[in-house]
């Protein structure tokens, strides 16, 4: 630069004088938006530089933060993982409590809707150890007034009946057990039959004549004909129906979630002496 000035002083002076006048012109001239041309030039000149500088600074910062300055990330990651696990545990606990509260609320509603019927709440404390036996144990027993053949149900539907009453617990035979039978009727047509357990998660409805129309999805209720289960409680819904020689072959899915029982009601209105086994006519 200095060498150029010494070698071409006239040219340098020319450039300087033109430059000064150019700035002077730019200061005086305004654009259509009343912005001085000098300001427009300055902004136009500086904006790309600022953008580049901003890009470099941001890029450097991002490079530093994301790839270099990671010495605390491992510890932070571990702490966050631990915190996440605790939160998940807390969430599961809350979900379980919420489900429990929901069930209790449903049971309370059932009891309030049938104030004249003797319902005793019980908690399911265990299930059978054998796959072929669909039974559960509840925390109420003979000491609470429970007797054999008392009906066990939930707000969604019936569960089964008590087969053994111990001093502090009772064994409940689920309606899905092979030996179970419940007097039933189709909610729409009032056609009666017997719901029998199949040893699976589903039941079957027997003795429905082929002349009757059995829509899939129909609700199956207790008929009370077995003089054990009170009339009008839901048992399940028709999953499939196929015509047989004389009767329909109907598969029923229980409305009570028998595999996830936690709280149930015992219908204490059927004393042991009054109950009758449902043998013969499909009754257990």
């Amino acid at each position, binding site marked *: 630069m200095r060498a150029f000035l010494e070698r071409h*002083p*006239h*040219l340098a*002076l*020319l450039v300087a*004088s*033109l430059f000064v*006048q*150019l700035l*002077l*012109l*730019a200061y*005086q*001239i305004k654009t259509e938006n009343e912005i001085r*041309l000098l300001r427009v030039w300055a902004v136009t000149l500086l904006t790309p530089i600022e953008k580049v500088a901003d890009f470099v600074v941001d890029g450097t910062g991002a490079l530093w933060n994301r790839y270099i300055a990671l010495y605390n990330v491992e510890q932070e990651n571990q702490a966050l993982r631990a915190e996440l696990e605790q939160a998940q545990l807390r969430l599961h606990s809350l979900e379980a409590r919420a489900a429990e509260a929901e069930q209790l609320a449903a049971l309370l509603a059932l009891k309030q809707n049938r104030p004249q019927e003797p319902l005793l709440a019980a908690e399911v404390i265990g299930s059978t150890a054998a796959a072929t036996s669909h039974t559960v144990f509840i925390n109420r027993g003979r000491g609470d007034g429970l007797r054999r053949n008392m009906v066990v149900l939930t707000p969604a539907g019936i569960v089964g009946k008590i087969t053994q009453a111990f001093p502090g617990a009772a064994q409940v035979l689920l309606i899905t057990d092979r030996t179970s039978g419940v007097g039933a009727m189709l909610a729409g047509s009032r056609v009666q039959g017997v719901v029998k357990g199949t040893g699976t998660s589903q039941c079957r409805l027997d003795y429905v004549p082929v002349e009757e129309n059995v829509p899939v999805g129909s609700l199956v209720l207790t008929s009370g004909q077995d003089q054990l289960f009170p009339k009008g409680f839901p048992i399940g819904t028709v999953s499939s129906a196929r015509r047989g020689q004389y009767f329909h072959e109907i598969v029923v899915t229980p409305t009570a979630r028998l595999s996830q029982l936690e709280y149930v009601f015992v219908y204490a209105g059927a004393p042991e002496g009054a109950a009758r086994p449902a043998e013969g006519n499909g009754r257990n």
Partner: protein
Amino acid sequence: MARETRTELYRFSPLVFLVVVFSAFFLQAYVPFYVPAASLLDLPLLAVIYFALSRRNPSTGLILGLVVGVAQDALTHHPIGQYGMAKTLVGFAASWVGIRLETEQPVARLLLVLGFFLLHQVIFGGVEWLLLGRPAPLLNLQTLEAALVTALLGVLAFRLLDRFRQSA
């Protein structure tokens, strides 16, 4: 025409310089009142060209053009610097040419003034176009006529001014 080694440098009394420049501005301002066509002339430009050619120093020439041009801007409605840039470049160019060419002959002076006048118009119009956003024809017949008249007037005026110069 000859190379720089064969040209002669001239000096002027500051008084001559001031009188000539002020006279150029005065005449440029008042003659068109009586002769409207005279507005096409550029007498301050003639002064710049003459002194730059005679002094044969680019720095002196461009400063002379700068001062005269800015003064002309100040006396007009143009933004300061528009005439200034044009006359700065013309002053520099005239000095540069004066170093390298023999400029004493009337024909040479005629052609030089003609050329510098057109150069001045191109620069002035270019600045107006690029900076002010007012596109205008840089050269047209009227400009050529004005250039020719200014050149003829310049030959006469230069002959008159030669009487006041001194060899350096």
